[in-house]
């Protein structure tokens, strides 16, 4: 593994630790990623609702 900001010979846990500030760094990344995924899921749900409403409308019309 070649990560410039941690000394050679260190392992993944050094990367995760982020110099002891890992909880702030990874919380920030986790919250941003979760928020974007929730936004996408919410749009998907709204889309499928719209399509099923449309289906009902067409069935009523028929």
């Amino acid at each position: 593994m070649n990560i410039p900001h941690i000394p050679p010979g260190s392992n993944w846990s050094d990367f995760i630790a982020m110099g002891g500030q890992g909880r702030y760094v990874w919380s920030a990344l986790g919250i941003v990623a979760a928020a974007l995924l929730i936004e996408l899921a919410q749009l998907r749900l709204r889309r499928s609702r719209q399509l099923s409403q449309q289906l009902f409308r067409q069935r009523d019309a028929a």
Partner: protein
Amino acid sequence: MTTNTLRGAHGPTWRRFAAPVHCYRLAGLLASPFAALAALLGAWGLYLGFVAAPTDFQQGEVYRIIFLHVPTAWLSMIIYVAMAFWAGLGWALNTRVSSMLASALAPSGALMCLLALITGALWGRPTWGAWWVWDARLSSELILLFLYIGFMALHAAFDDARRADRASALWALVGVVNVPIIYFSVRWWNTLHQGASVSLSAAPHMAEAMLRGMLVCTLALWSYAVAVVLWRLRLIIGERESGAAWLQAELGASFEQGQAA
């Protein structure tokens, strides 16, 4: 050459997109490429920011929150200006799709604003020793969040969609004054928040590798926001034009496509 061939039979070509049907199709065409671009740039930007960029000599590793904080903060301001612009245009030219675009921008802008505040708090705690301070930069960004929430609440308060568009356009346009206040707050007041790392008038105050990561992350989030806003615009057009025959045909086709897949 007659005026008609120059301008097209119904005025300049761009005016076509004032029609919900053209706008709906264009948004559908553009959204997926922007989403793909966002995924690629996002992976690259996170690699640059969290793996390739060097440790900061003052702040250590916690500064890496910058790769999330600055893109969300920039977009929260850019989206607000775009929202006010389209809301104003929808009011001035009476083009309802412009107003729908403003409504599609609002939730994304509010989310970016909230994320800028949260990532800022996670950065402030280890570096300043406080999650929150009533500093000019932080306070004006919080006001931006309230402006977004106000815009959406005001829009939701009217039964008539066009009246809602006009009232919230006025709100959005008045609120634009807050954007330069956020941007210049670190210069106008003595803030705990650090000054701008990047400006158009001076060389950036950061290492090239850090700057590259920040710009790629910003482009990634920008592409993501474009894709999400276009998808939301299609949903809003779908809700507000639900009686239109063209829309029923489009939705019927999408439904059959979904069944086949």
